[in-house]
C-alpha cells in the first residue's frame, strides 16, 4: 500500500497550456531578437569605465578629505571625527599653532582599509573641515599605503566647492 502512495506522489503533472505559436519555438526566438535589436537604436546606458569616469551627484560619499583654505587646513584637531568613527579609522594628533584657531593637526591619518565611507566624520565636524569627496578609486598594494596622511588628505576648498555647497543646502 505504501508503495502505491509513493507512486502517486511522484507522478509528474505536465501543464499543457502553451499556445501553438509558443510550441512552434522559432517565432519566439524571432520575437526575442527583435526586442534586442530595438536597443541598438536607444542611447547608451553604460560607460566605458576606466576611460570614461562616472559623474556623481554632490551627495556621493567617496573618500574623506581635509579642506584646505588659504594654505592651511580648516581642521582644529578637536578629535570628534576620531571619536565618532565607528571603524576607528581616524587618528589625530593636535599641536599648537600661532594662528587664531590655536590648534592644528600635527598628524591626521585615516586608515583607508578601516574606513567604511559612512560620513559620520563629516557630519560631526564643527569646522566643515573633513568632508566626503567624490574619489572612489582606492586600491593599495600594502597596508602601509592604505594609511592616508595629511599629504593625501588635503584638498583645496575650491575643488571641494560642490560638496561644500551641498552640505550648506542640506544642513
Amino acid at each position: 500500500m505504501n508503495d502505491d502512495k509513493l507512486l502517486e506522489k511522484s507522478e509528474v503533472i505536465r501543464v499543457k497550456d502553451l499556445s501553438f505559436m509558443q510550441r512552434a519555438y522559432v517565432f519566439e526566438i524571432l520575437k526575442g531578437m527583435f526586442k534586442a535589436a530595438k536597443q541598438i537604436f536607444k542611447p547608451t546606458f553604460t560607460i566605458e569605465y576606466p576611460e570614461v569616469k562616472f559623474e556623481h551627484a554632490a551627495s556621493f560619499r567617496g573618500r574623506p578629505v581635509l579642506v584646505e583654505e588659504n594654505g592651511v587646513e580648516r581642521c582644529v584637531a578637536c578629535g570628534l571625527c576620531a571619536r565618532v568613527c565607528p571603524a576607528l579609522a581616524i587618528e589625530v594628533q593636535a599641536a599648537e599653532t600661532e594662528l587664531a584657531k590655536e590648534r592644528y593637526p600635527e598628524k591626521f591619518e585615516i586608515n583607508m582599509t578601516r574606513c567604511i565611507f559612512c560620513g559620520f566624520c563629516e557630519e560631526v565636524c564643527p569646522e566643515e573641515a573633513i568632508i566626503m569627496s567624490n574619489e572612489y578609486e582606492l586600491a593599495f598594494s600594502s597596508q602601509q599605503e592604505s594609511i592616508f596622511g595629511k599629504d593625501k588628505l588635503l584638498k583645496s576648498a575650491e575643488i571641494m566647492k560642490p560638496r561644500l555647497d551641498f552640505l550648506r543646502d542640506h544642513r
Partner: protein
Amino acid sequence: MPNVKITLDGAQYEVDNKKTILEAAREHKIHIPHFCFHDKLSLSGNCRVCLVEVEKMPKLAIACMTPVAEGMIVNTKNERVINAREAVMEFILINHPLDCPICDEAGECKLQDYAYKYSKGFSRFVDNKNHKEKRVEIGPRVMFDAERCISCSRCIRFCDEIAGVHQLQFVNRGDRVTIETFPGQSLDNPYSMNVVDICPVGALTNKDFRFKSRVWEMSFTDSVCHGCARGCNIEIGVRNNEILRLNPRRNDDVNSVWMCDHGRLETWKNVNAENRIKSSKIRKEGQLVEVGWDEAIAKVASELKSFGKNEIAVLGSAFATNEDNYVLAKFAKEVLGTRNIDFCRHAEGVDDAVLVRADKTPNAAGAELVGIVPQENGMDFHKIISAIKAGKIKALYCLEDDVALMPGIEEALSNLEFFAVHATNHSKTTQYAHVVLAASTYAEKNGTMTNFQKRVQRVRPAVTTFEQDRALDNFEMSRWDKFAAHNDKWGKGPRRDARPSWKIIASIAGVMGTKYKFNNADDVFNEICQKIDGFKGLSYLKVGVKGAIVKQNHVAV
C-alpha cells in the same frame, strides 16, 4: 552632633545642623549643580546655579550657602527651580565662547556637562560675544583663557586658602571681569596647577599637557605619586602606552584632592624618556651591551657566587615597592647570607606646610618595614660605602636608585669588583655598573608603597612592558586600546623589555638554587602579610584604593 529633620524632594532626612543644603543633598545622593562651590574651599556663592526652592522663603535660595534648619522643605527639581537654573545657565553661556573643539577641558568640563543636563540647549542671544585675551601665560605652568572664565573664583580661593599666597585677583566689573596677577608677578606657587583641576571650565589649562590628547582617548589608572614620602593619590593618564599627565585623586587622609606641581610634572617623565633602559645590559670590554634576560641573570648569579658572604653588600631602595624590597631582603638573607643590607636615604630640606615632605622618596618607611635594615653586626649605608673604599666589600647589589648622586660615592663605586644595579633609566650609577637589570618603573608594575604615615598604598601598572598585555593583565583600557588590531599604529606605543625588580631577584635566586614560589606581586604581598607583623591582616583587597595603615612601628630584622 545635633541633627535636624529636613525634607529633600519629598523624602525626609536627618542631617547635621552645621551642613548646608548642598552638602546635605550630596550626602543623600541628590545632585545639585554647582560651579563655585568646592568642599575644600571657602564658600563664595557667586555662580548662582545651585538655586533651590525652600518653602516659605520668598525667593529661591542658593543651596551652597543656606544652612539646613529644622523642618525645612527643599525642592531641587520642581519647575520653578528648573526655570531659574536654565536662566542662570543662559547668563553664564552668553559670553562663553564656543571653544569646545579647541579646549583641553572638553570631555571633563563642568560647564559642558551642565549645559547638556541643565540648560535649554539653544541660545537666544543674537549679539556678538564679549572678547577677551585668549592665550595668557598666567604662570610658568598654567595657561589662562580669559574668554572661557565664568568668574567662579575657585582659583583665587585656592591660592589664598590652600597654597597660602594671594596671587590671583578679580579685576574690572560686569562682563569685563577677569582674573589677573599683580603686574610683574605670575601664578608660580608650587601648587599652582591645582587650579587647572578645580577650574570648572577650560579657562585655566595645563601648559605641559596642552593639546597633547583628548581626555576621552586616554585611560586613567589609580596609582600613587612617587615624588616624596607623602604618596599623593594620583591617576595616571595614558594614551598609546605613553604617560601624558597625572591628576590628583581624592584621599582625604593623605592629599585631600591636591598634589604639588613637582609631582605632577617631574615624577613620570623618566617613564617615557629617551634614556630609558630598554633591556638588560652587561659590561663587555668597557661598554654596556644589550643581552637577553637569561644571560644577564646567569651572569649575576655566577658573579655573586664567586664572592664570600662578607664581601657582598645589598642596597634596597626607597623608590622601589615594598614587594621589591621584601624579596631583596629575603634574597640577601637566605641566598647570599650577607648582613650588610641598607638603603640610601634622600631627605632634603624640610617638610612644607601643605603636602611636600623633606624625604624625597615614596617608600623609605616601607623599605625599613620589610627588612631593608642592617642585620646584626651588619654595616649600614655609610659603613658599606667606606668598606667598599677600603676594599673589604667587593660586590654590591643595588635596587632602583641613583646612589651615585650622593656625595663621595662615585669613588667607591669605581672600586667595586662587581656591581649589579636594577635601573629604569641610564644614570650616573649605571656608568659604574657591570650588569644593568632593566627594572619596571612604578607605572609598569603592581605593588605597594608605604608613605610617611605608614599607610600602605597600591601602585598599579598603567604602561605595558614586553611581558604584559593590556587586555589580559587587567589594565585600564581606553577605547583605542580595546579595539586596536595588531596592524593599527595607534594603541601600540613604545614598550620596553623591563621586569619588576622582585621578579628579577626571584629568577636570580632560582639560578642560585633557591626557588621562590612567587607568580605575581599578590603572592609577594601575601607573604609580607604573613611574615611581617605590621602588615598582618592586610591584602591588596584591603589596601584598596585608599590605602591601609600599618599597625605598628615594627621594624623587621
